[in-house]
């Protein structure tokens, strides 16, 4: 079977706009998600029950329900309440782009918080003892030792999470956004050529995946150089 390459080429702008939107949604949700994940991860390993259990419940519920349900709850669900529709936030909450970024940010924050909590728990004992011996206060200890060290060690798993998020962004097409998948859907609706439409989208995602893998390899070489096996 041969694909209609000239037609794909002709519709390249459609896909390019899709790539731009996918990357925009991905970057915004990752940045907001990470900003949320740091306090959540710290709460998750805290000794205070009042901090630990709410964070546990949050990550458990978010990780136990499908992303699509969370997206629908925010995009379609919130409009059910009169108070939301009257609030000054309504112009944002009725926008598909805003709701999608919000839902994705909440989702990735739960997964990233768990990753960060795992790294914090795996902090070598000696690092903490050394910091205490230097007379650091708890706040300084977190700021100078625990967080930088744990964030670095989370990098390889966080790379996986970013790849999963890239795939998750395809759900944006379900709430009317024209991202890469949305471009493929438009293409298919216009010409009824499903193979051309979705194989092109699949290839674009594959290329983006390989680029991100490369990027994280470079980042690991930079920030995790001190953990690499010794070369003679």
């Amino acid at each position: 079977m041969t694909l209609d390459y000239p037609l794909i080429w002709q519709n390249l702008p459609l896909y390019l706009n899709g790539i731009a939107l996918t990357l925009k949604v991905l970057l915004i949700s990752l940045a907001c998600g990470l900003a949320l994940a740091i306090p959540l991860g710290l709460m998750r390993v805290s000794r205070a029950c009042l901090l630990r259990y709410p964070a546990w419940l949050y990550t458990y519920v978010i990780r136990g329900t499908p992303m699509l349900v969370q997206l629908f709850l925010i995009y379609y669900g919130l409009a059910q309440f009169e108070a939301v529709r009257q609030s000054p936030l309504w112009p944002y909450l009725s926008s598909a782009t805003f709701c999608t970024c919000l839902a994705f940010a909440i989702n990735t924050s739960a997964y990233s918080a768990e990753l960060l909590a795992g790294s914090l728990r795996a902090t070598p004992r000696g690092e903490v003892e050394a910091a205490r011996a230097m007379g650091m206060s708890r706040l300084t200890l977190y700021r100078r030792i625990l967080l930088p060290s744990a964030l670095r060690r989370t990098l390889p798993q966080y790379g996986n999470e970013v790849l999963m998020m890239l795939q998750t962004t395809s759900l944006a097409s379900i709430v009317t956004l024209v991202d890469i998948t949305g471009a493929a859907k438009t293409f298919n609706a216009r010409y009824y050529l499903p193979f051309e439409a979705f194989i092109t989208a699949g290839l674009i995602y594959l290329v983006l995946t390989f680029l991100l893998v490369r990027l994280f390899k470079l980042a690991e070489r930079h920030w995790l150089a001190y953990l690499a096996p010794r070369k003679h």
Partner: protein
Amino acid sequence: MLHGYGSSILDGAWLSIHLALLAMALAIGLGLFGAACRLSPLKWLAVPGEVYTTVVRGIPDLVLILLVFYGGQDLVNRLALALGYEQYIDINPFVAGVCTLGFIFGAYLSETFRGAFLAIPKGQAEAGMAYGMSALQVFVRISLPQMVRLALPGFTNNWLVLTKSTALISVIGLQDMMFKAKNAADATHQPFTFFLAVAALYLLLTSASLLLLRGVEKRYSVGFKAAEL
């Protein structure tokens, strides 16, 4: 509270569970086959195995679901026309869903199974051989029971992701709980209520799976002690 839509959503949940179980059965088969291919010394088996796992894991589930549904429909109808069958054939979304999810998670599971197989010390298989067991006997008696223990954490993870992915099949028209909830939400103008109910059902499903699989893990870890930190 659910305006009489409760039982319809529960029917949808039942369908989602069926979908997840059948897709998982297919994924286990494909995963074992894929792992066997990748572990094979024969290049013409190992390379396609690697391509399968890499390509499938790099493309979003939704794109593959749409490709299989629309593309499959196109292919089936062209094939039917070539064979002289004039009527339009509709692909069943349930069948499309089982096939696509099975195909996707087969790729993820083949990685899990391959890792589990590689984690078993080589000497055990050699000892089996020394006792005069055939390659098949070594696999069934020695490797397989231990692979269950070693693959369980990865399997649990994949099962949870697959369960949640079933929600996507509503996009191609399967009347699962997501689809039923959307209908009910449109009819009653209470989307939050119904999607929250679906979220609760999914949470119940994932929590129950987690408890069950933890029990299995305990059963298969008898005699093994984790390193104390």
